[in-house]
């Protein structure tokens, strides 16, 4: 295995494009090293991105949103007061990934690129309308986070392409987001179901909303019907029931060692209801 530490994304892209065998990028490494240890993958070229300038930075974008470097760890996100104030849902999703020790290394981009349908960091980004900047042989392009996953373990990135940044839109006034997941224990499990809700309110009426689900389909889901079930409402019981029904209806889960189809379908509705209440409370500044 050849270990590379390129100084720029362009060098990284060049290395990846020229590589013949299996190539993996390395940021936090908390997925790649597990797969290496299990013998699932022994890369021929491992490209460590952490020496690239700016990968550790969390910066405001001109329009008031955020640009998060690809090597920023969950712990660093959690310690960033202003980012947490704007996007608590996005941050709490990332902070649920693994233990305190994992939080010291794991990154949002790594969580996204690993391609797991149950990734805890992804629903929050999808609900927030976040985007990623992809640098490749042909230059850079921006893609919505929701469009990056292409199935279990797969993304839309082509050969030689690497994600160079994640950008979050401006929070704007009276907005709130939240992420919840279900796991059988209180910590350390992969999500059996995950749900993120991002909404803005006008007084006590919801003016805009996005609802996304994790671990209930081959990729993260953005559920239009669920959002429409609460837009224009004050999140009363009828709206909450409609939201839960829409969320469960969108599920297309599998039976596996973590959960059954019925369980995931039902709990998706339960989490959507609970996450919406938290997002609504945050949007109203409670």
């Amino acid at each position, binding site marked *: 295995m050849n*270990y590379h530490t390129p100084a720029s994304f362009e060098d990284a892209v060049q290395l990846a494009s020229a590589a013949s065998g299996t190539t993996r990028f390395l940021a936090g490494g908390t997925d790649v090293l597990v797969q290496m240890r*299990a013998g699932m993958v022994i890369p021929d070229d491992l490209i*460590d991105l952490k020496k690239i300038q700016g990968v550790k930075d969390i910066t405001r974008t001109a329009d008031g949103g955020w640009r998060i470097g690809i090597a920023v760890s969950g712990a660093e996100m959690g310690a960033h007061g202003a980012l947490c104030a704007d996007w608590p849902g996005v941050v709490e999703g990332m902070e649920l990934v693994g*233990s*305190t020790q994992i939080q010291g290394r794991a990154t949002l981009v790594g969580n996204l690129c690993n391609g797991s349908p149950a990734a805890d960091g992804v629903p929050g980004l999808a609900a927030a309308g976040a985007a990623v900047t992809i640098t490749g042989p042909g230059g850079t392009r921006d893609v919505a986070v929701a469009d990056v996953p292409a199935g279990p373990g797969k993304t839309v990135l082509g050969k030689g392409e690497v994600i160079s940044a994640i950008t979050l839109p401006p929070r704007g006034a009276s907005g709130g987001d939240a992420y919840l997941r279900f796991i059988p224990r209180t910590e350390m499990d992969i999500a059996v179901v995950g749900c993120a809700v991002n909404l803005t309110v006008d007084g006590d009426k919801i003016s805009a909303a996005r609802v996304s689900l994790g671990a209930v389909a081959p990729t993260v889901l953005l559920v239009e019907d669920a959002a429409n079930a609460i837009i224009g409402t004050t999140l009363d019981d009828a709206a909450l029931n409609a939201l839960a029904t829409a969320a469960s209806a969108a599920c297309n889960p599998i039976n596996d060692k973590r959960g059954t189809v019925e369980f995931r379908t039902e709990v998706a509705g339960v989490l959507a209801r609970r996450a919406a209440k938290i997002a609504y409370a945050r949007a109203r500044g409670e």
Partner: protein
Amino acid sequence: MSKIHVTTKVNGDAVEFLADPRETLLDCLRDHVGLTGSKEGCGTGDCGACSVTLDGTLVCSCLVLGVEAEGRDIATIEGMSDGHDLHPLQRKFIEHAALQCGFCTPGILVAAKALLEENPDPTEEEVRYWLAGNLCRCTGYDKIVRAVLDAAAEMRKEAA
């Protein structure tokens, strides 16, 4: 297979070793630097027995490559007591019988030290969630949490 020369700092000492890129930091600490205090319980970041701090951040050394340690500052269990006087956590773990087989103890001590440096007055629940990544199969965690809370109280008194 071409090995890579790594220079780094472990518990304040300058250290050099040759590492195959596939070797984890844990393997390098144990097999090249001769510090066997950090343990491998799972190799997948699920048990915490290999906990060290990397530039002050608590991490699993089984999920960091040896070559990634170049130029960093690593602290392991062996660096927790300076000379012969133990860190309050080490003393309290013995006093509270907060260990039985002791295999998870190094990882838990390193993690608890990192907690108290960040939060000198944690609640029981904060201790439990911070240590959720450090599995213990012998104690049921009760005496471990009591020892951490007791050490925190002693350290706060000293700091006051």
